[in-house]
């Protein structure tokens, strides 16, 4: 009986390694001789085949699943991303899962570690279709994003400080600044905060920064409120006075975490963890990184289970499962695999069995990484078209075809 070649010499594994490298080319940014390539690498105008989060600091492409979920949430049709997925599906079917997906490679490697091995029940296969329908399309479209922030700070009104009647104060070198703020959002903003920053005209460096908050003030949605005057040191000779508000930073969050990117273990591993390590939590809005809760509110504002706990828990569960089950993410939770699988029968690249050649020896079932009943299910929605069964078939009854 033919045996499979050693793991790292298999064509699909080599292809996955090359794909993982190419999809994360921005890792080469520190190399100075590649500096010219950095702006192009950072654009993320191309879509990824397979699961590779665009929130990863090394990623050069956007995850089409993430783009589709985002499109659902902002109710815009991302035709380009959808077209990319359809072309990829029409050409390769689920071949992408076995040959191009970096997360598939990670799962294959982890499954090589000696550990208790178990089989997944068949009903778990439905998980990925539910994830695709509910977490990529229905819930994001229905619930949208909760947005906070967008307080606009208008141009400040500056006057030289004048002593108040009946008071003797040293007002030399001081100015009174009055700013008004407009709430462009749907919710009232309480206790507005304004940053006053002197910026040097030439060097554009900050000279002085001061944050003032205005307790007891509430800015209703759609209204403009003039805040009480703030007395500042007059350094206008050195630079411009810039006013802004931390509440002008719009934060998008998904209600009840019912948004695929918020739960995706690929995003947690490739984007959230590096962001936590770099102390950048909350800087990328909605995507894989959980937003920092507003000042004074703990993570509890996100409910009993914080977004961070939930994400890390899902990742930990999948990592553990990867030791015991071959490719659990592909089988249970991958919406890209669900799309590729739904149309794998009409893809140009497909696997099929020559029924007459099959001697029912079971060799194919023993090597199948997704535990299929290969004679019945090869080339179907669950088959990742890895070709391992093809290699071990003593009668060469399983074949791959590319074409109409």
């Amino acid at each position, binding site marked *: 009986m033919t045996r499979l070649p050693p793991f790292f010499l298999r064509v699909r594994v080599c292809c996955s390694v090359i794909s993982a490298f190419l999809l994360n080319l921005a890792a080469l940014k520190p190399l100075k001789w590649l500096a010219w390539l950095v702006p192009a690498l950072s654009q993320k105008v191309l879509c990824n085949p397979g699961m590779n989060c665009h929130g990863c600091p090394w990623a050069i492409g956007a995850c089409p699943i993430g783009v589709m979920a985002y499109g659902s949430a902002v109710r815009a049709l991302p035709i380009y991303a959808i077209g990319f997925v359809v*072309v990829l599906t029409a050409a390769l079917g689920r071949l992408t899962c076995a040959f191009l997906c970096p997360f598939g490679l990670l799962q294959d490697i982890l499954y090589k570690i000696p550990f208790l091995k178990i089989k997944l029940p068949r009903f778990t296969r439905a998980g990925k279709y539910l994830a695709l329908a509910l977490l990529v399309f229905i819930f994001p479209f229905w619930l949208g994003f909760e947005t906070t922030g967008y307080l606009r700070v208008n141009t*400040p009104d500056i006057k*030289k400080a004048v002593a108040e009647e009946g008071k003797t104060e040293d007002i030399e070198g001081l100015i009174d600044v009055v700013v008004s703020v407009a709430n462009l959002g749907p919710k009232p903003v309480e206790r507005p905060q304004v940053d006053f920053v002197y*910026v040097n005209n030439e060097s554009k460096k900050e000279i002085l920064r001061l944050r003032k908050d205005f307790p007891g003030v509430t800015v209703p949605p759609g209204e403009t409120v003039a805040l009480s005057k703030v007395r500042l040191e007059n350094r206008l000779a050195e630079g*411009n006075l810039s006013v802004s508000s931390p509440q002008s930073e719009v934060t998008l969050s998904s209600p009840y975490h019912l948004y695929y990117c918020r739960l995706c273990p690929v995003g947690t591993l490739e984007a959230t963890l590096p962001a936590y390590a770099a102390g950048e939590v909350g800087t990328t809005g909605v995507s894989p990184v959980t937003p920092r809760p507003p000042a004074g509110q703990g993570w509890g504002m996100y409910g009993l289970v914080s977004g961070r706990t939930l994400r890390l828990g899902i990742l930990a569960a999948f990592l553990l499962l990867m030791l015991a089950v071959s490719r659990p993410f592909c089988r249970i939770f991958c919406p890209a695999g669900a799309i590729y699988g739904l149309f794998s029968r009409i893809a140009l690249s497909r696997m099929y069995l020559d029924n007459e050649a099959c001697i029912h020896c079971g060799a194919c079932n023993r090597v199948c990484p997704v535990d299929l009943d290969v004679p019945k299910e090869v080339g179907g929605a669950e088959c990742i078209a890895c070709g391992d069964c093809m290699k071990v078939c003593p009668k060469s009854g399983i074949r791959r075809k590319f074409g109409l």
Partner: protein
Amino acid sequence: MKRLRLLFLAIGLAGLLSGLFLERHAIYRLDGAEPAKVGGAGFVAGAAVDDFMLKDDALYAVNSLSPNAASAKDCKT
């Protein structure tokens, strides 16, 4: 089946090409400035960094509120 495969591929290619060359999204700014138009690739790049939000049934640029500044010449009296 051959026709179905061809049709599926043609739909995908049509989507990809129309997304690249015809897809347009008007992105408004919160500071009231003129909206910008982004194509399919621009939308993908923006979605990757959470650049857009939905407000009043229109897409707005999330980071379109830039700080306002005043200089010495604006100081009255």
